[in-house]
């Protein structure tokens, strides 16, 4: 039997079975994709003359990185950067503190249904709204300044951290938590002994990551008047002061790098 099969197959070509087995669907997807690409390219208007003129400026900007100007607007840069850092720290602390109870509430395996729905709702709203849009609204309500930025970042932290924390709790090892429950622990004791040790390392890691994100976001909130280094950066671009802009960007990159390095150390210590 199998030998007859072999005889049939010898001499026949062999092709890799396609990823999408239905040929109509497969060709439909391919054609649709290319049709989209063509349509998209047709509708993008590129003023090549303008781009060509801009190349010089682009080159000037790249050159500016070799001679960044930290001193010309030192006081502006310094106060903007300090404000960014202050917003980051305050918003991260508040955001993390609030996101822990919400994260607990948004985990289906430890929270009752009504609380679960409310917490998931909060998470969904916070995640759906882009930081910069929240910042615009908060600036309109609370006026210009770092308070709006602080609130924006706290709000965004809640959505990010609660969701991941809740997912982590839902994926935790049930047996360990049950063992603590079996010893007659109260709810809070149960969370403290059965749940917390399991999710703590990841919570620390995620918090560090979020601090990193918050700092990066704080750099753009200034564009809409919510405080931080963004305003200084915007001014520098507007005045074509590339050397100052380069200095600010280098500072941001440096701080992000050191934050990443720090979070790497902390994460390896916790685990």
């Amino acid at each position, binding site marked *: 039997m199998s030998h007859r099969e*072999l005889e049939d197959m*010898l*001499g*026949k*070509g062999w092709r*890799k079975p396609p990823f999408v087995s239905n040929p109509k669907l497969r060709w439909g997807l391919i054609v649709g994709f290319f049709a989209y690409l063509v349509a998209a390219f047709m509708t993008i208007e590129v003023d090549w003359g303008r781009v060509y003129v801009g190349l010089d400026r682009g080159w000037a900007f790249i050159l500016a990185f070799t001679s960044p100007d930290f001193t010309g607007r030192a006081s502006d840069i310094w106060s903007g950067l300090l404000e960014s850092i202050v917003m980051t720290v305050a918003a991260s602390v508040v955001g993390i503190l609030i996101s822990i109870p919400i994260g607990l509430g948004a985990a289906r395996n430890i929270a009752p249904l009504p609380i679960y729905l409310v917490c998931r709702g909060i998470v969904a709203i916070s995640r759906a709204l882009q930081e910069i849009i929240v910042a615009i609204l908060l600036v309109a309500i609370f006026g210009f300044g770092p308070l709006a930025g602080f609130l924006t970042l706290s709000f965004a932290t809640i959505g990010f951290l609660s969701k991941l924390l809740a997912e982590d709790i839902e994926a935790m090892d049930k047996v360990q938590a049950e063992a603590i429950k079996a010893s007659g622990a109260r709810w809070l004791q149960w969370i403290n002994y059965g749940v917390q040790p399991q999710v703590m390392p990841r919570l620390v890691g995620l918090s560090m990551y979020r601090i990193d994100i918050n700092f990066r976001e704080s750099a753009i909130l200034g564009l809409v008047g919510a405080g931080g280094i963004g305003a200084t950066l915007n001014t520098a671009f507007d005045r074509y002061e590339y050397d100052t802009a380069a200095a600010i960007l280098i500072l941001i990159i440096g701080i992000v790098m050191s934050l990443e390095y720090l979070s790497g150390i902390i994460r390896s210590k916790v685990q």
Partner: protein
Amino acid sequence: MLRLQKLTKTYRTGDQALKAIDLEVGKGQVLALIGPSGAGKSTLIRCVNRLVQPTSGAVWLEDTNLTKLGSGALRRARREMGMIFQEYALVERLTVMENVLSGRLGYVGFWRSFLRWYPQSDIDEAFRILDRVGLLHMADKRADELSGGQRQRVGICRALIQDPKLLLVDEPTASLDPKTSRQIMRLITELCHERRLAAIINIHDVALAQMFVPRVVGLRFGEIVYDGLPTGLTPEKLTDIYGEEDWEATIQTVEDEGEEEVEAAE
């Protein structure tokens, strides 16, 4: 056909895995390499096809010194040596057929292999070998859908389609159950017979080695301490290789099992 001369490997940590090994394997000869973990079995066969770079010494495959080859010549030399791995080492997300055909990579150009346009002769050969190991109907399954024994068969096909002169086999049965282990060992030795292939088989299961292989080499701390017939593996010799232990039981069961095996086969 294969000759190792004073083959030495010292790892960067200072561990001497191989201490001036001299070994000769004739054409069509199947050889089992036994020894405790860390004796240098894996290092030895990886030094032959230079997945591990030997520190000094020479490896002669017929008339070429493998240790002296540049990268292009090394690739051509590697085609002559099929390798079978402990954990199968199939590319999990490719189909069985692609895994088998990947044995031909040394013979076809990059674009042909990238577009899966293999010569018809390669495809026919792949079908034949798959049929030989009884996996023809699995050709278009993905490798990670297969059982352990089936995967190892695909690994064997990949080595055979290279049309090698020598098989390097690294713990082929380490992750298989006892029955499948025997089937795989039998398959490997049978195929070596059919195709007149020489083979070096690393194996930690002394009983299996005795059952299927005519020549056994014992390795301890990077040195050859035994080289001879499987029947010559007395308790004293095993103590030389592995250290003090009550070997009578092992040898006894080996002989019993061996007889059963023969009966079952007949």
